[in-house]
């Protein structure tokens, strides 16, 4: 079952994007596809959330963008991670880990 964008925790989308981009330069369409494939269709990022997030991250300096050619020879905007973005990703990942562990502990305790 696909998850609504409202179900994605605030800030989580940013982290997912950073993570996907960390794998190598990629365009918006690619990011959406990648998130969907990797999450086995659970997470479907809508364009309405994806692009504002991309631009926001770019503006904050965590992503850098260049125009380049896609696999099929079209002009596309490729995003890649900046040094600051890499740091940010690390911070968010560890945060997420802690949060997830905490939530898991509570769920286990409640059982």
């Amino acid at each position, binding site marked *: 079952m696909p998850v609504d964008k409202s179900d994605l925790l605030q800030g989580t989308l940013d982290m997912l994007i950073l993570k996907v981009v960390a794998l190598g330069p990629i*365009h918006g369409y690619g990011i959406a596809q990648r998130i969907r494939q990797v999450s086995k269709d659970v997470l479907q990022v809508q*364009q309405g959330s994806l692009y*504002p997030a991309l631009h926001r991250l770019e503006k904050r300096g965590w992503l850098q963008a260049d125009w380049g050619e896609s696999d099929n020879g079209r002009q596309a905007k490729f995003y890649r991670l900046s040094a600051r973005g890499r740091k940010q990703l690390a911070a968010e990942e560890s945060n997420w880990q802690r949060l997830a562990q905490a939530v898991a502990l509570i769920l286990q305790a409640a059982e």
Partner: protein
Amino acid sequence: MGWLKALFRRNALERDIDREFRFHIDELTEQNIARGMSPGEAHRQAMLEFGGKEQLTQDLRDVHRPAFLDRAVLNLKAAIRFMRKSPSFSLVVIVTLALGIGANSAVFSAIDAILLRPLPFPDAHQLVLLEQLNPRNKSQDRFVAPVRLADWGRLNSTFQAITGYYTENISEISGPLPEKLTAAWVAPRFLEVWGVSPALGRDFSAEEHQFGGPNAILISDRFWHRRFDADPSAVGKSLLIGKHSFTITGVMPASFLFPDRDADLWSPVPVNAPYSLKRESAWYTVIGRLKARVTVAQARADLATIQDQLGKQYPQTDANVAVAVQLLKDSTVGSARQSLWLLFGSVTLLLLIACTNIAALLLARTSEREHEISVRISLGASRGSVVTQLLTEVFLLAQVGSVLGLGLAAGAAKLFRELARDLPRVDEIRLDPHTVTYTLVSAVLVTLLCGLLPAIRSTGQSLAGSLAHTSGRQVSSRNPTQWALVGVQVALAVTLLVGAGLLVRSFQELARVAPGFDVGRILTLRVSGTWAETADMKGLTQRIDRTLAALRAVPGVEGAATSANLPGVPSQFPTELTIPEGQEDTTRKVMADSRFVSAGYFQTMGIALLAGQPCVDNATSSGVVVNRSFARTYFNQSPAIGHHLVFGVGTAFPQAGEIRGIVADSREQGINANPMPTVYWCLSAPMPDPIFLIRTQTEPSAMAETLRREIHRLEPNRSVFRIMPLTEHLSDAFAENRLRTLLLSLFALTAVSLACIGIYGTLTYLVSVRHREVGLRLALGALRSQIVKRFLMQGVTVAVAGCAVGVLLAAGLGRLLGDMLYGVSSLDPATFVGVIVLVLAVAALASLAPAIRAARVNPMQVLRDE
């Protein structure tokens, strides 16, 4: 300036967004085709899946919009809300600022037009006025001989060109009635110096500057419209001036108003006419255009060297000539400079008062909003953002105020033209980009001045403290800052009021002064004439005398005379004289004001004859009359009558005269100047168009038409002009004075009203804050009169302190008024005492209403609310 660049990059951004989306949609389409859809269907589905492109683009725009703009818009919205919520407060602030900024911009527009903007000629900073003067006797005979002008023009190395002109009031007689025109007779290179070309037609040719060459004229745009209805075929037509016909060679542009706005035509003076060749005949006012990057000092040095050489070459005529050089603008602006800066100073004080007033009001208001502000800060707003928001509120009010103020300034330009017609360059005052910019900058400064202090104070308090107590619980609130602001207002208002008071007192003194001659029932007029008539002095004198005789014969005329100057209108012609019989004190130069008057002058003007006889109707007798101070100063021991006076040694027309009579002192050199030693040369025609002074039995203006017709009957080819009562001339002469006094009084009264509003507002606010305390006091047995006294005293104490400071300020600044004062010292006790009494009385009145309101508090009500 990153956000600015961002704005310019907007288009590029939109293109990028569009390309990025298109790529995404193309990819989706391709994927759909791979799934087996037709290309059309695939694209449609892709578009559908991608969703609202417009909305998304808007979202991205929001992401990229600089945060600064977002905040500004938010602040502005909040400010508008604030304005709507408190309309009366906003109105008070807006009106106060509109008055303050408007008055300031109005005076600035005058300063800009008169003092700051260059004269309306190309590269006007290069234009200078050259005058010749006799360094030995400071004679004001400043006109320059045509040959000397030519010498300067030929020998100098600092000027692009030098030219000269003189004016004449002439009659043009080709129409049904002779029309009086103001003609400027000009030396060669006239238009070259101004850097202006005719709007129509051509400049004078070299031939037209030759003696016996064709008669040519250029006409003014005004005359062209008036006479020819702006018909281009006017060029080539002829005008009849005196006995000669002149061909119009061109029309000058409307902006060319030189020597003054009355100039109707310009005509070349032949350079080689016999009468132009004497070094003694001086008549030109000389204007030069400096070469680029040449300073006035360099030009002065250059001309001094040249004149030195000429002095050696022509020792008779040129040895005692020095050359004075000053910027044409400085000589044009003259005394208006002082008045304008005075007005600007006072109007700036007024704006300061308005700002202080608003600052005090805002302080009261923001302390009411303390709670709101602390809540916002505790919710995470930074102090800076709250300050910015409070400032935005003030800025919005200041902007509205300044726009209204601009309207006021636009109206004031008209007022200046009405009230001070004689102010130099008054036509050039208008609302232009300079003034608008100035006004907007004032609005920003005003915002900072008014808003910064209240904003910083109200956000600076400790959070917990102000959240803890609700505003009503305060028992006593001391507001030293607010009272200090009110005190400053009172001090500044006192300063302005003292200045205005001194000027008003001067004006009263001036009105009270006995001029020594009878001003009432005198009609003045002039009859056109040309300087060429001075070639036949005898004929000219006969003509003037004939006119005088005809005027005296008109029923209703008590006396008539001519004079070269208007009595009482400030003008002097100081000259050095010699007494051939020898003077009593040989070390002292004999200096006196020379006036030229006809027979009947003293009788017409009501100046008493003390000894001897007045000027008589006899052109050949060379008699002079002196006044009492002349006789006292130079003939203390011996009788003056019978001595001779010689004037103008070394000029073309040295004159000698025998002292025949002594008259009483009068203030003919200006009502505002003490009588000075004066010599009256009995000469009815010192110039072709002397001023006729006619004493009438009844209202002088009522006789105007009769007298005009009488002169027209006698001299059908001459025009009569400037018919007006002498009183009107005197009133015009002091128009600048009057304007200055009027405006300063207006500013001062506004200032006092503002200061009172300040006292009233602050006290009203205090009363409302201390409502509970007063109720408690009353409940505990305080008398109502005690309560009234307490509040009243608070207002009056501040007013007293303000007065004390204001008096000190006024005493210090009074000296700036200097020679604008007449008959009062800048420390005039009556003015100071009057101002203090007035300010204290008004302050007490302003305090009384809130004080009484305080005493009306119902103690039961207060206790119940508790």
